[in-house]
């Protein structure tokens, strides 16, 4: 339900009554086909909200190109709504989808749980701000620039300056606008928005794609590339020609009255304050809670934190203060896409835990008639040509296309339809298919992307295998791009229909098979991630086998005593372990090692050796939560001098009240030890927070202690920035160093003759050498992949990334899944992360597991590859290109032969292109079908092709 707001919420967890207010869009959604003819006719031009008001849109419009549902709405700029004039759109709409009589509608829904995902807004600098936004035309925000870069943006993907519509050549980005503000009143927020460093780098890379000579400069305070693979992304941006990263506070000074160029003032280490002119300045604006968040919180009766985001508990960051109301995404705080996806899936898993007893009670299965076997029949093809209102019909002569279709071989029926996707037309296709005994259906309309599934169902309704359907795209590929060449467009429609019919003749019925799903899960790794995930799965009625390599559960969290935000980690861990052991559906295996694992989604077998002996577990899903380890430093006298220790060792000593550390005069903490270097080209993400935490704790115990943190970039992203500032306020000294000039340590004596560690480093602010006498030096040692990760990966046929952490299926979109179905990922096995983030991802993985385990079967696509053994020469080229390991080479009497496991095959067809003999064929996209389509492109060739000798011989192989 889009364009709908929540009006009121009553009730309690498991039984809410939510009143919704559906705003009138003045469009009957079920009738609108998204053809946008009305938009063309609408006379009102209005600043396009989606394109940051840089360009214009109409009063009736689709909000943006990929909107779901893809239907129009009418906004307040409409002439009729304002003055009761116009109504042009009504007459333009052939489907009568416009209804000006719509009024706000109150809808009451009964739900068991609520997920709040209100998202964020981009910070907008106030008029009169120090950066000239709103005053100087060529100062834009990161959000404005994002639209400028986009092909569907205001200038169709061209980056143009507002002042003269010319391409800017020299562009500056200014970071931390509205974020990390010391005095947040008016200027924004105290927290770090966590995403801007990387989005600015992305914008630079895209800018260079547009104009490889562009000169780009990013002014920043720290580069916070703390996310997975962000460090490499940063390096990619850094290496671009004409690209500069300048660490400096920056202000916008003036605009040139003639050229409208913008002058920026900044400071440098060597040359003092400098001024420089740019064609355009992009303000990397931060994130801010949505404008109406307080109203929303009031309606739901939930608490917000000081920053205006949801008040959450560290142990369950998806739970709001009201039971039954969960949250996901950036409502937790500034968040990147992968974390938003974890929490979305995680919140759904928690709803599942709450409502599991009612699972499946409201679902109804759709019943289709039995399928008629038509494989022996001659093709009888029906062609339906769609007008798409005026979209196609106005350009292409649909009646002549119908007439033409009737002349094609095997076409026994052809007709036109106003909107083939409208429900009456759908019924008509089903009825005609039955009545005329059609066994293939071609719909010539739009792109198969949106509507193919719908049309396939019409065939199923008619008792025909759904793979007998073919779509010809005469809209996007034709009428929309050839609107000025009507005759040619009609000819092209003939071509497209002829090609579709040619392919349709070669379509084959395919079976989508149901694989049974074993309802049990295996979770590998008994740390916070594994335990949280196991509990969430078990709470939804599934047996879980939890495997832990060590003697005890707990993992890395055993070494952590409290978090920056104040959680007592050991108490929480004990409670979690107790819950796991006392859960009747969780079976714990300690000192466990996987000896073998095989199978596929829904049907795995894992053999485990553990304290319990050898066990064979049959399960439907596996979660990898093997955690990570800490790097053992070899630098900075670690292991040679017992005054040098890691950050975790320091934490332990603080916890144990070791006076050597708590009573020390001076402590130096060195960041980035063992990572952000050639050996480990990534940021360990948690160490800046860890050191700030230790520093604050030490200051609390001994306020007079001198604490120095030697860092490269302080990466206290999100709300952690507040603690960084707190530490600075308490006079923890932050001194930056460069990787090529690392701090040096030698054992020595202080002036008073006290034995100390002498730490020397360059102070870039003062431009001088610093010498610090330290009693203790702590090293922020890198987080490294867990030992044994490789073996676990090998067992479940999933890959590790370049840095040795597990490689998820898609960095942004599928961060808890693997390319291999049925295997999931959470915790530090994926990448270093804080405890709250681990909990988010653990619930996220549980959510995905439940999506699989809550079904009795999984459906495997029919469009998979198969091998004609006779033609196979056993060269294994196919197996080498299959990213899913779906092809196996077996020895047979006739030599090596490839065989496809259809369950693992994803139907990309790369193997087909590689096979020298055409032995491996992707069903539904066979050589035969595609050659037929290629041949049919040339009209009079239909006959010639039959006589000329085809490339891959298409003769049927007789089975001997």
């Amino acid at each position, binding site marked *: 339900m889009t364009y709908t707001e929540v009006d009121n919420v009553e009730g309690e967890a498991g039984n809410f009554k939510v009143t919704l207010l559906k705003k009138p869009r003045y469009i009957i959604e079920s009738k609108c086909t998204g053809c946008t003819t009305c938009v063309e006719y609408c006379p009102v031009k209005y600043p396009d909200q989606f394109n940051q008001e840089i360009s214009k849109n109409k009063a009736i419009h689709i909000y943006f190109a990929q909107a779901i549902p893809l239907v129009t709405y009418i906004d307040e700029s409409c002439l009729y709504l304002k003055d009761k004039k116009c109504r042009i759109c009504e007459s333009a709409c052939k489907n009568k989808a416009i209804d000006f009589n719509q009024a706000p509608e109150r809808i009451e829904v009964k739900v068991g749980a609520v997920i709040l995902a209100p998202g964020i807004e981009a910070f907008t600098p106030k008029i009169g701000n120090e950066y000239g936004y709103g005053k100087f035309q060529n100062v834009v925000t990161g959000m404005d620039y994002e639209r400028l870069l986009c092909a569907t943006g205001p200038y169709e993907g061209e980056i143009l300056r507002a002042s003269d519509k010319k391409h800017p050549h020299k562009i500056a980005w200014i970071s931390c606008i509205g974020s990390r503000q010391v005095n947040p009143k008016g200027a924004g927020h105290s927290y770090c928005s966590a995403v801007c460093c990387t989005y600015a780098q992305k914008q630079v890379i895209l800018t260079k794609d547009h104009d490889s000579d562009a000169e780009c400069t990013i002014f920043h305070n720290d580069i916070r590339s703390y996310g997975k693979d962000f460090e490499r992304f940063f390096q990619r941006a850094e290496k671009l020609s004409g690209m500069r990263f300048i660490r400096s506070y920056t202000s916008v000074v003036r605009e040139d009255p003639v050229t409208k160029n913008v002058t920026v003032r900044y400071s440098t280490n060597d040359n003092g304050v400098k001024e420089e002119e740019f064609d355009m300045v992009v303000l990397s604006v931060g994130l801010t809670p949505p404008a109406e968040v307080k109203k929303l919180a009031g309606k739901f009766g939930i608490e917000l934190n000081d920053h205006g985001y949801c008040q959450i508990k560290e142990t369950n960051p998806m739970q709001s203060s009201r039971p039954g109301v969960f949250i996901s995404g950036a409502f937790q705080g500034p968040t990147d896409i992968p974390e938003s996806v974890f929490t979305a899936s995680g919140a759904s898993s928690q709803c599942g835990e709450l409502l599991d007893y009612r699972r499946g009670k409201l679902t109804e299965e759709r019943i289709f008639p039995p399928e008629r076997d038509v494989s022996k029949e001659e093709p009888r093809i029906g062609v339906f040509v769609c007008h798409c209102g005026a979209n196609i019909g106005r350009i292409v002569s649909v009646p002549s296309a119908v007439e033409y279709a009737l002349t094609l071989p095997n076409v026994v029926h052809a007709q036109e339809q106003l909107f083939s996707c409208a429900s009456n037309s759908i019924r008509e296709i089903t009825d005609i298919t039955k009545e005329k005994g059609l066994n293939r259906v071609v719909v010539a309309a739009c792109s198969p992307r949106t509507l193919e599934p719908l049309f396939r169902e019409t065939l199923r309704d008619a008792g025909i295998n759904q793979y007998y359907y073919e779509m010809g795209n005469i809209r996007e590929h034709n009428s929309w791009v050839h609107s000025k060449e009507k005759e040619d467009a009609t000819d092209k429609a003939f071509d497209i229909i002829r090609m579709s019919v040619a392919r349709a003749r070669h379509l084959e019925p395919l079976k989508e098979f149901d694989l049974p799903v074993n309802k049990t899960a295996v979770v590998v790794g008994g740390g916070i991630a594994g335990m949280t995930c196991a509990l969430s799965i078990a709470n939804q009625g599934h047996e879980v086998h939890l495997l832990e390599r060590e003697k005890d559960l707990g993992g890395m969290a055993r070494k952590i005593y409290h978090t920056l935000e104040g959680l007592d980690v050991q108490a929480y861990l004990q409670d979690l372990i107790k819950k796991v052991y006392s859960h009747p559906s969780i079976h714990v295996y300690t000192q466990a090692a996987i000896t073998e694992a095989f199978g596929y989604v829904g049907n795995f077998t894992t053999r485990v050796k553990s304290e319990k002996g050898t066990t064979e577990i049959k399960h439907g899903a596996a979660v990898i939560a093997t955690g990570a380890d800490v790097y053992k430093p070899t630098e900075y006298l670690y292991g040679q001098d017992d005054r040098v220790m890691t950050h975790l060792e320091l934490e332990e000593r603080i916890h144990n009240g070791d006076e050597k550390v708590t009573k020390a005069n001076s402590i130096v903490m060195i960041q980035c030890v063992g990572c952000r270097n050639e050996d480990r080209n990534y940021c360990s993400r948690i160490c800046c927070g860890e050191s700030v935490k230790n520093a604050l704790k030490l200051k609390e115990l001994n306020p007079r202690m001198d604490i120095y943190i030697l860092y490269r970039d302080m990466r206290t992203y999100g709300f952690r920035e507040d603690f960084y500032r707190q530490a600075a306020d308490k006079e923890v000294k932050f001194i930056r160093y460069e990787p090529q000039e690392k701090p040096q340590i030698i054992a020595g004596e202080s002036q008073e003759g006290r034995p100390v560690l002498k730490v020397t480093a360059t102070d870039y602010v003062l431009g001088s050498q610093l010498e610090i006498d330290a009693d203790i030096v702590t090293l922020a040692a890198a987080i490294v992949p867990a030992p044994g990760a490789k073996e676990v990966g090998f067992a479940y046929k999933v890959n590790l990334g370049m840095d040795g952490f597990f490689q998820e299926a898609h960095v942004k979109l599928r961060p808890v899944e693997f390319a291999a179905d049925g295997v999931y990922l959470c915790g530090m096995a994926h990448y270093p992360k804080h405890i709250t983030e681990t909990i988010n991802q653990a619930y996220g993985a549980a959510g995905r597991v439940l999506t699989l385990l809550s079904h009795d079967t999984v459906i495997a696509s029919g469009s998979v590859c198969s091998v004609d053994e006779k033609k196979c020469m056993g060269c294994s080229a196919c197996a080498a290109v299959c990213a899913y390991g779906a092809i196996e080479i077996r020895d047979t009497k006739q030599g090596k032969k490839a065989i496809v496991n259809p369950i693992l095959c994803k139907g990309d067809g790369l193997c087909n292109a590689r096979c020298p003999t055409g032995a491996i064929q992707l069903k539904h996209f066979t050589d035969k079908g595609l050659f037929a389509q290629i041949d049919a492109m040339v009209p009079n*060739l239909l006959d010639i092709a039959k006589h000329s000798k085809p490339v891959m011989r298409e003769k049927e192989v007789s089975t001997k």
Partner: protein
Amino acid sequence: MCSGRIALEFVLRAFANGIDGVFIGGCRLNECNYITQGNYHALNMVLLAKRMMQHIGLNPDRLRIEFMSSAEGVVFAEVMSDFARKVRELGPLGYGESLDENVLKARLMEMTALVPYIKVHTNEKLGKRLLEPSEYDKFFTQDEVDKLVNEAPAYYIDPQKCQACMICARRCPAEAIISNKGEIHIINQEECIKCGTCFDVCPPRFGAVTKIVGLPVPLPPPEGQRAVIRKKQEKEVA
């Protein structure tokens, strides 16, 4: 189906049908929504196909691959208009290259027939990921492809040595070997895909299959004179 599914033979088929230009659109490189990155495969195939086109005198600009996202309608429109303009400049297939229609057709057929052989010899390379556009041009050199095509072998069964054991015939993926019982086997050169399977599987004690490069293939013995000369018998005769 991924752009990596587009096979070399599809492209050649289009040209053989007299199509003047072939365009392949793929997703943006490095932005695969799966883990296959198949667009790199499509790119490599195009680089190879261009060299094959050059080998037979066709202008390689008639084939183009571009990578773009579904949100880049404008880019697509620009690329297509530009490509159409380019192809129009080049003129009808063969005409712009001053190639006789029949000669062109014959050459395309010849290339097409070599596809299986070319695939066998370029397979490993076709899977590479070329991260820099500067690598594209030298990925397949003209010399390399010319040599590959010029040195395409033919396989021939020596009537003196064949013992009609049927092994090669059973293993031939193209069913190109005529193998009547007790008669020496014959490779139908029209059907042969030059994969070399027969060469590999002919028992070493017979060694009847020979690889011929650059020389005409001897004609097989006429029908009626194909009885196997058994090795044993041969000895007796001697």
